[in-house]
């Protein structure tokens, strides 16, 4: 069987707030459409609910106790072991590998190079507008600009008239077009920055979530029997200008209820904004005639707490922080070949089109982990999957501490 191209899409801090995961509030039509032609893993867990450790763990298929990366301050090749990465495995098997946006965690954790040239055939692309992300870009009630958590903007008024995920999608579309007629198979990883904070998003997406329809988390109070060590005090959220103004007590808050509703409104709006970029990407794949030869994987590095247990952000072992979406579209395996001319991923504009309901084609309920992604993507693309690691694997360059989930595509789950 020929080797499939791979389009590997990662969202940042995305919990399973998607229609295809049963969330009735969110509008995520493009990801739901992808899921309807895919296999959906309903119970997928990150190995640590924070960006760099989770991404390094997933992309090397090693657990944090093997990468020894629990913060953002070390690069696995110099700190613990020269572990082969998922894109590196594809590159060494003749693929042209490309990175757009946030795939590896930028900075020390990926050697200030996104692990290029080990992992990528060309230097990783980062959207120029990301450098404004932490600056004062948000117009407050006082008409001045602030570094707010809630930052719905008029995109035309932003520097360059754009936002990071818009730029990343433009670049990914450009790269797809550049590879469309090339016989060399490609592995394109696209990492969106949303719904990570700040919620600097196009203001029109707020209209999908009228504040009077928003509700608090079903369990907004800190549980009485929660050990203090288990609680995450959401320090990054507190640092934003608009949250600081609320003078919230440390560590348990709470955040005023009206502001909780607005945070939840902005998070969902950020998901719909990111969904639209996924839709642009998939419709381009389709228009280029690549949907029949390209496997699409959609996932996230960890979740985000929207007020459950009195917590916000990730940084904990609660399911809302560790559980992530994991969706595999594999032409000819998760979906039958399409009739000529029928499009596979037409773009769906949540802002203008009425809500569409998609049904998942196949779901897996058993527990799976992000360390399973590397062996499974390799095998399903037509490469050899890395072999299981020995108990102590610091000296092993290529092995997996996860499972190859290929068998789940072939048989119906029972039990």
């Amino acid at each position, binding site marked *: 069987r020929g080797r499939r191209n791979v389009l590997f899409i990662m969202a940042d801090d995305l919990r399973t707030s998607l229609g295809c995961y049963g969330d009735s509030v969110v509008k995520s039509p493009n990801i739901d459409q992808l899921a309807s032609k895919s296999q959906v893993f309903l119970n997928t867990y990150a190995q640590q609910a924070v960006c760099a450790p989770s991404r390094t763990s997933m992309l090397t298929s090693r657990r944090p106790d093997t990468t020894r990366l629990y913060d953002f301050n070390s690069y696995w090749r110099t700190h613990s072991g020269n572990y082969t990465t998922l894109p590196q495995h594809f590159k060494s098997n003749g693929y042209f590998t490309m990175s757009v946006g946030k795939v590896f965690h930028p900075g020390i954790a990926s050697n200030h190079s996104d692990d290029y040239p080990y992992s990528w055939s060309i230097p990783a692309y980062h959207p120029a507008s990301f450098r404004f992300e932490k600056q004062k870009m948000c117009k407050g009630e006082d008409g001045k600009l602030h570094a707010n958590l809630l930052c719905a903007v008029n995109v035309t008024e932003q520097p360059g008239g754009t936002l990071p995920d818009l730029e990343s999608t433009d670049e990914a579309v450009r790269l797809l077009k550049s590879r469309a007629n090339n016989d060399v198979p490609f592995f394109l990883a696209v990492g969106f920055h949303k719904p990570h904070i700040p919620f600097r998003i196009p203001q029109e997406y707020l209209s999908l979530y009228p504040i009077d329809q928003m509700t608090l988390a079903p369990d907004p109070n800190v549980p009485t029997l929660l*050990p203090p060590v288990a609680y995450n005090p959401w320090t990054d959220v507190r640092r934003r200008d608009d949250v600081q103004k609320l003078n919230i007590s*440390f560590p348990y808050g709470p955040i005023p209820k009206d502001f909780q509703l607005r945070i939840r409104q902005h998070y969902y709006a950020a998901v719909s904004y990111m969904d639209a970029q996924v839709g642009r990407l998939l419709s381009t794949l389709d228009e280029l005639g690549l949907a029949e030869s390209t496997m699409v994987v959609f996932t996230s590095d960890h979740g985000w707490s929207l007020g459950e247990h009195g917590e916000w952000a990730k940084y904990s*072992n609660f*399911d809302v922080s560790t559980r992530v979406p994991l969706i595999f579209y594999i032409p000819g395996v998760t979906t039958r070949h399409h009739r000529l001319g029928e499009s596979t991923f037409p773009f769906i504009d949540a802002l203008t089109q009425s809500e569409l309901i998609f049904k998942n084609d196949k779901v897996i309920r058993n527990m*799976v982990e992000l360390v399973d992604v590397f062996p499974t993507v390799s095998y399903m693309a037509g490469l050899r999957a890395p072999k299981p690691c020995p108990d102590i694997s610091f000296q092993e360059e290529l092995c997996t501490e996860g499972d190859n989930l290929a068998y789940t595509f072939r048989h119906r789950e029972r039990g």
Partner: protein
Amino acid sequence: VDEEDIAFSQYPRPAETPQENSDLPDLNDIRIMGYSLRSWDYRYTLWLGFNPKTFQVNVSDVHAGELYMLATDPGQDKNLFSDSEHSVMMRKLPSLP
């Protein structure tokens, strides 16, 4: 029948009570590691002593525990962990085959 799989997660902490760097402690400040087992019907977490120099975990140094039965507590709000049951289990573990 598919065997029931377990998902393992973990999270580091600098201290037993929340402080400024609790969310993201630097490696050298990590003193406790919370290890979670998540099956389809429960989540069991132990917060254990951790040495950032040797990367060793001290399984007899239990700072706290969590146990949630998800059929009746899907939001993980009712912690059922009890020190006494845990210490009974730990005493039995070495004698297990």
